[in-house]
């Protein structure tokens, strides 16, 4: 079955494009120390705010640090936040969704009520509120983004569970007397995986956007650690003098998120059960 997916996947050019970009970014993040021309935190005040040149490919920031190196290291931050935040959201969301969809009844009602409440808050504002009360650092950011992301996933998983629950193989498993937990994890879960995967991919893009917005506002990753968002903060302050500080980090964000979105949409087309009729 996975072979079918792979074949279809290869046909969807946009999704492939997205996947290639993501792989490139991942590799960049891992080998960052090897490819960055300068130390991202090395200040050189004599050469601050220099436009792109042969020496500093993308220019320097307000403290003379090389922009290209900072953007390369920023890849690490963004990818880390994306994966961890979405990872948290998936774990909580899938678990609650499975329980909610499988057992139904009062547990379902309770969990759904909780989901509704969480969804009432404007997500971003909730994140801001919580971070205002705790201190802004990368770990809090990841956890909070994850904690605001699970409600949507729970609804999704629950919906899928409700439809899969009635299929024969689940009934058979129950008749065989398998424990509920086993049925949920071994039989139910693999069949609801598809939309989870799609949501996760799209979610990583969203998490990266959120993290960069938070860092931009000064409530995310703190300098001197380089994050695309907090480079843009300096970009805003020096917008009339150093356009490169505003352009390039934003471009990096754009490309990354676009790649994840393309991959996510591609996955959605590939894993769509309606197309199984082929």
């Amino acid at each position, binding site marked *: 079955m996975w072979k079918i997916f792979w074949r279809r996947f290869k046909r969807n050019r946009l999704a492939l494009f997205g996947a290639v970009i993501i792989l490139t970014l991942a590799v960049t993040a891992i080998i960052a120390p090897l490819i960055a021309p300068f130390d991202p935190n090395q200040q050189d005040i004599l050469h601050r705010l220099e436009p792109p040149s042969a020496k500093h490919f993308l220019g320097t920031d307000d403290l003379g640090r090389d922009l290209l190196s900072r953007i390369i290291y920023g890849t690490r931050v963004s990818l880390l936040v994306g994966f961890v935040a979405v990872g948290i959201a998936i774990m909580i969301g899938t678990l609650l969704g499975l329980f909610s969809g499988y057992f139904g009844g009062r547990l379902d009602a309770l969990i759904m*009520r*909780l989901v*509704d*409440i*969480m969804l*009432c*808050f*404007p*997500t*971003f*504002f*909730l994140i*801001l*509120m*919580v971070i*205002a*009360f*705790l201190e802004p650092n990368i770990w809090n950011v990841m956890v909070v983004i994850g904690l605001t992301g699970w409600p949507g996933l729970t609804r999704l998983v629950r919906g899928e569970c409700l439809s899969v629950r009635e299929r024969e193989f689940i009934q058979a498993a129950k008749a065989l007397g398998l424990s509920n937990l086993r049925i949920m994890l071994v039989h139910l879960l693999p069949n609801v995986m598809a939309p989870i995967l799609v949501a996760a991919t799209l979610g990583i*893009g969203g998490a990266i*956007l959120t993290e*960069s*917005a938070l860092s*931009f*506002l*000064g*409530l995310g990753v703190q300098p001197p650690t380089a994050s695309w968002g907090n480079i*843009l903060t300096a*970009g*805003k302050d020096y*917008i*009339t003098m150093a*356009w490169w500080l*505003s*352009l390039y*980090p*934003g471009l990096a*964000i*754009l490309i990354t*998120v*676009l790649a*994840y*979105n*393309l991959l996510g*949409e591609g996955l959605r087309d590939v894993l769509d059960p309606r197309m199984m009729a082929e």
Partner: protein
Amino acid sequence: MLEYIVRRLLFMIPLLLGITLITFMVIQLSPGGPADMLTGLSPKVGAEAKARLRHLYGLDKPIHIQYWLWLKRVVRFDFGESFKDGRRVITKILERLPATLLLNILSLLLIFFIALPIGIVSAVRQDSFFDKGMTLFVFLGFSVPTFWLALLLMLLFGVILGWLPISGMHSVNFLYFSLWGKLWDLIQHLILPMFISAFGGLAYLSRYSRASMLEVLRQDYIRTSRAKGLPEKKVIYRHALRNALIPIVTLLGLSLPGLIGGGFIFETIFAWPGMGRLGYQAIMSRDYPVIMGVGIIAAFLTLLGNLIADITYAFVDPRISYRQK
């Protein structure tokens, strides 16, 4: 129909309770708790002064009593006084709310009038150049960080071209303008924030209306009307459109809270005097009463938006009222 509304309203009550509960818990998260918030963690405040402060504000009572007392005040919209200037929080919020609402409603209208036609035309001419182009545009719209776009547009229109003002709601000499002058000034200040605000929603809504329209076009009754020999225009405008509109309209209702929430990013960038900006400034200056107040009002407006969306849906979709009978 009426009972549907009443039922929805009743549903809202536990949700509201939940909101207040979560907000209350968030307050407790602050290091040192509310008492230290009030004294600003200043080491100069002695231990007994703090103890007296706690007693004064009832912070030494058990936590569920604290919650109850707080809840009673919140219901009356009494959020206390701001830490920064001592004015009542609710006053400050009400001052800023019209500005935010103005921006959001106008953005919503903009989104509606642009995204809808785009989506519909995309669906009607599926896979055409227009459709593919729009899809690309939509993808970009999803992926672009709005604050970055705001910066770029500010750079382009405000700094380089100098066409539009880049901050605030009024110019400095606003009061000297004639009525028309005032209106024009307001419009000029509105254009950039409105556009940025609408951008994200545009992408989403046009995608959604396209999907909805496609779904409708596949239906049998469309095929019937074509078989009947109706001109294509009538098929689309009279039959398909109306049915495709139903889910779109509800989506609009749901978008309003989204705008309110995301509003403060561009409110901050453009120095637009709205509620979002108030919230952001409060967060930066650790003005907790204001943060709580804005948070609850925002959640409340979200609920309201959902309610309006649901009622509109029930209103517009005849199938729902059938079920009530």
